């Protein structure tokens, strides 16, 4: 295992983020940032609801789902009743609480994370099909976005030995 790792080290990760909830976006951001921290090349590709994370209007308004999320717990660990999650404002409150917990752990905000990834040489892309579908233009997206690209262009980027594609 060790010799294989040394023989074929990971060199590049291409990460696809297709969901727009806080935890999914953070999973993609942590992996991309972790990659540049390790000296790996990182490409981040946002599609479908993941586009919220790079849309100027939505980037600071990401939420976590309080309905249909069986792992959701009350503070203290009791199950979180689905009916409670339906009440207006609850999802926003829970999301705000999650963000404050992350701040305490020194986890950057979403815009700051993008800044760090780009500073480390990582590149951010948006999916053409999904931007067309959601009627988003390049100027609707944050400045860190390099380009709106097709799936074919994404695969072209994913070439080379030691590349992995990760889907979030």
């Amino acid at each position, binding site marked *: 295992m060790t010799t294989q790792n040394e023989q074929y080290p990971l060199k590049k990760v291409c990460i696809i983020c297709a969901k727009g909830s806080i935890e999914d976006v953070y999973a993609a951001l942590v992996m991309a*940032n*972790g990659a540049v*921290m*390790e*000296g790996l090349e990182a490409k981040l590709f946002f599609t479908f609801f993941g586009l919220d994370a790079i849309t100027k209007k939505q980037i600071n308004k990401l939420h976590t789902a309080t309905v249909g999320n069986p792992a959701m717990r009350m503070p203290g660990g009791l199950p979180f009743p689905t009916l409670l999650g339906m009440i207006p404002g609850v999802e926003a409150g829970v999301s705000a609480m999650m963000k404050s917990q992350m701040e305490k752990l020194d986890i*950057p905000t979403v815009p700051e994370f993008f800044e*760090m990834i780009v500073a*480390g*040489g990582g590149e951010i892309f948006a999916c053409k099909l999904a931007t067309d579908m959601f009627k988003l233009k390049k100027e609707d997206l944050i400045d860190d976005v390099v380009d709106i690209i097709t799936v074919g262009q994404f695969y072209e980027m994913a070439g080379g030995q030691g590349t992995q594609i990760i889907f979030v």
Partner: protein
Amino acid sequence: MAEKTIAGATVNVNAEGYFENPAQWTKDMAIEMAKDYNITLTDKHFALLDFLRQKHLGGEQLSIRKVGTSGIVDVKEFYQLFPGGPLKISSKLAGIPKPMSCV
């Protein structure tokens, strides 16, 4: 634990070359170790190494973000000063353990 001679002195390092005892570190060792990464250390590099050592000795967990808010460099400059894994390389050159941070 392994022993390694850096800049004429013997120090204890782990399997990956990180110092076991930060007190054994000197600036000359940092200069010599930096050659492995093709880095010529400047005053700015040393200011950062000092910052990392102080934070480590103060018991703080280090992250790229903390270095970015150190007032010495921003995140982009940090990547430029230590290309190819800034936090890991700078920690090694600063004679402190490998950083255990995910951000």
